């Protein structure tokens, strides 16, 4: 380093040291277990899960579309709204002790939680990053010029209590029982004393960014789309292995689902489509090992659907909301609650998916979002309705809404794990449905072919009854897939009458002049698979009829199929027929060649 450049560096450092240091800065220590334990101990965590509001009542704050929007507050145990009021909302709602807070216009506005009246209003300069509230205070993060600032306001008066600046990007804050969690530069989670603004400590996840922060009344979580950490003393390790880290197995078809609001995404400051694609979860408290999902699993809210999964990622129940989307959802620990666009409140049992409650709140408008304050709440389940998972999955598959094509695939794959003719019928219906998306048809085709379910044989035979008929205007549907599915039953114990019916139906297609050569290949294979020799006369007749025909006799695939069926699965009589066919000068060359090759490959 030259003397000149060293002098410049000293000058810059000297300038940088001027003025108060920001609370959030790069050089602060992190992952201090003692400090973290101490900070977490400052929380006034309730002994059991409970709402934040001072009344301890389960509440929901619905926002109805309109100019201006309308806030409607509900006590979830009651059926009538607590209050409603128009509000120039520019954000979601956060719930404090006896107030709610939201951005209205360019101000942070607190409203009395029991009446909805404006309690105080504080102008917020700059870009609004997000807000939060606990029982006593409201918090807001803004970005103004080069500065990010987290500020606290008294819940009763709106008086600014403190502010803490940052030299880099802050995410939206999350409050919990006197602590404020403030994401910083996507790498740290600052734990700030809600009373003083002092950053007590901060956590850094070395293997993941920290973009998502969620707090219940007792537990806080942080992480990203890649996984989730339970905030506890082990978080000080900074590693997945030594933290309470876990992740839900999110099916690729539901890949928009996330563990919570992205605190850096300005769109998610307001209610958005992201609120309709949520992983809903709670964690068991543990001292060692990985994250353990409460109730043995988690759920994914995906627009109209709520799907429950085991911790291993196996779908265990499904709920489909009729007609309209669920616009907001939450895991209270005791129930999964959601509100639909038309204002129906739904509560499901997290483990079984049983519908504990379905109540029309009739808010008087279209719901665009909602905030729940209902930790620990579950409705009285005296009239719980068990989950109708198979029916729901079938309904999802048949759903005409093109936005859910990938969900349909997931439903189909899940459904196909169950044996039985009803599921087979669903697969066939997809194949026969001209409006079904091609990707879904491809999945159905694959699933049907590998199904190998003897109990489905009557359904497959019924499908084979559909034939080409000019007058009726019908065509066979899914013939190759059905034939391949039957072929998959080779070696299975089939009731003789069912096998006979299947052979008869297959023979009808074998003999039909409209069955194309590629389909005949599968029909022949299916007949061989279940015929145990009884199919041979029909196949011999088919061969004699078509050995000199241009369309079939000249088709190598058909030739291979029929020759293989008779040479390798037939007896001496069938092989003698093959010799005669090969010797017939009218036989088409591809067929004659296939016969000669097959017979030459055999020792007899």
């Amino acid at each position, binding site marked *: 380093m030259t003397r000149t450049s060293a002098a410049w560096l000293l000058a810059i450092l000297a300038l940088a040291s001027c003025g108060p240091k920001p609370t959030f800065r790069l050089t602060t220590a992190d992952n201090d277990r003692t400090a973290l334990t101490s900070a977490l101990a400052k929380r006034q965590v309730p002994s059991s899960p409970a709402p934040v509001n001072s009344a301890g009542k389960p509440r929901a704050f619905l926002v109805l579309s309109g100019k201006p929007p309308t806030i409607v507050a509900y006590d979830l145990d009651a059926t009538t709204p607590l209050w409603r009021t128009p509000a120039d909302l520019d954000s979601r709602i956060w719930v404090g002790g006896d107030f709610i807070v939201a951005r209205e216009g360019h101000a942070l506005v607190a409203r009395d939680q029991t009446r909805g009246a404006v309690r105080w209003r504080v102008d917020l300069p700059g870009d609004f990053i997000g807000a939060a509230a606990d029982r006593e205070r409201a918090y807001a993060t803004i970005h103004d010029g080069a500065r990010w600032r987290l500020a606290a306001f008294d819940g009763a008066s709106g008086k600014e209590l403190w502010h803490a600046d940052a030299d880099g990007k802050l995410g939206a804050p999350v409050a919990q029982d006197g602590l404020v969690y403030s994401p910083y530069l996507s790498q740290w989670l600052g734990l700030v004393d809600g009373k003083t603004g002092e950053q007590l400590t901060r956590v850094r996840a070395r293997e993941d960014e920290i973009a998502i922060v969620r707090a219940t009344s007792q537990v806080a979580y942080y992480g990203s789309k890649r996984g989730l950490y339970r905030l506890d003393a082990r978080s000080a390790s900074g590693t997945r292995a030594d933290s309470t880290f876990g992740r839900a197995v999110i099916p690729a078809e539901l890949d928009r689902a996330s563990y919570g609001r992205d605190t850096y995404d300005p769109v998610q400051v307001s209610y958005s489509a992201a609120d309709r694609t949520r992983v809903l979860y709670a964690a068991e408290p543990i001292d060692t090992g990985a994250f353990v999902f409460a109730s043995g699993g988690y759920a994914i809210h995906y627009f109209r659907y709520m799907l429950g999964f085991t911790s291993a990622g196996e779908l265990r129940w499904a709920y489909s909301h009729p007609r309209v989307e669920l616009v907001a959802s939450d895991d209270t620990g005791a129930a999964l609650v959601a509100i639909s666009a038309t204002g129906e409140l739904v509560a499901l049992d997290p483990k079984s998916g049983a519908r504990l409650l379905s109540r029309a709140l009739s808010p008087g408008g279209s719901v665009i979002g909602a905030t729940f304050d209902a930790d620990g709440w579950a409705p009285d389940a005296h009239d719980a309705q068990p989950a109708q998972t198979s029916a729901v999955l079938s309904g999802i598959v048949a759903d005409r809404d093109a936005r859910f094509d990938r969900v349909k695939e997931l439903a189909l794959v899940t459904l196909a794990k169950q044996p039985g003719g009803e599921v087979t019928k669903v697969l066939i219906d997809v194949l026969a449905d001209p409006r079904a998306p091609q990707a879904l048809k491809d999945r159905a085709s694959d699933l049907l072919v590998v199904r190998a379910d003897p109990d489905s044989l009557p359904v497959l035979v019924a499908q084979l009854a559909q034939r080409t008929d000019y007058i009726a205007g019908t065509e066979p549907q899914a013939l190759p897939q059905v034939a391949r599915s039957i072929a998959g039953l080779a070696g299975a114990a089939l009731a003789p009458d069912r096998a006979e019916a299947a052979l008869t139906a297959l023979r009808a297609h074998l003999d039909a002049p409209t069955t194309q050569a590629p389909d005949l290949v599968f029909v022949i294979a299916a007949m061989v698979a279940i015929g145990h020799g009884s199919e041979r006369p029909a196949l011999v007749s088919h061969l004699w009829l078509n050995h000199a*025909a*241009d369309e079939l006799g000249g088709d190598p695939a058909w030739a291979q199929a029929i020759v293989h069926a008779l040479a390798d699965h037939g007896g001496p009589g069938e092989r003698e027929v093959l010799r005669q066919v090969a010797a017939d000068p009218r036989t088409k060359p591809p067929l004659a060649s296939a016969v000669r090759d097959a017979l030459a490959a055999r020792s007899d």
Partner: protein
Amino acid sequence: MLARYAGHHAPNVRAAALAAIATYPDPAARAVVVAGLHDPVASVRAAAASAAAAGRVREAEDALFALLAKGEASAALALAGLADADLSRKIADHFGQVPEASLAACLGAILRRVDFGPDTARVEVVRALGKLTDPSATHALTDYIDATPKNPPRPSRAEAEKLVEARVGGAP
């Protein structure tokens, strides 16, 4: 064997088999003819329709009516070939249910049959034609008048003349 060839992949082979099988009185052969009426290839359906008429396959009536509704000329001719007095009434009753041109072709073909009768049945066919507004109905009536000698006088011819006169009378 003919029945097997009626299911051959080549349409011309199927059509030939149906033509050959037409006069076999065996119920299985008649079923093959009926099945041929459902074939997706028009030439095969036409062969089956001809076979149905030639073999007087009454089991084919329903399928032939279905094809008549689709406007198939071969079905019109086949029904005409099968028609007796009762069937001709049944055909006439399809007024409004099948294309008028097809119905006119069918009824006209019935009138062209020298073995169709009695004349009272012909009168009914002529009147059925008279209900049709399609120009082909007028042509069918005209053809019938032209093909039928004036003497001995036939009520059916007279009825046809009356209907044609009523239709063309206002023409310049």
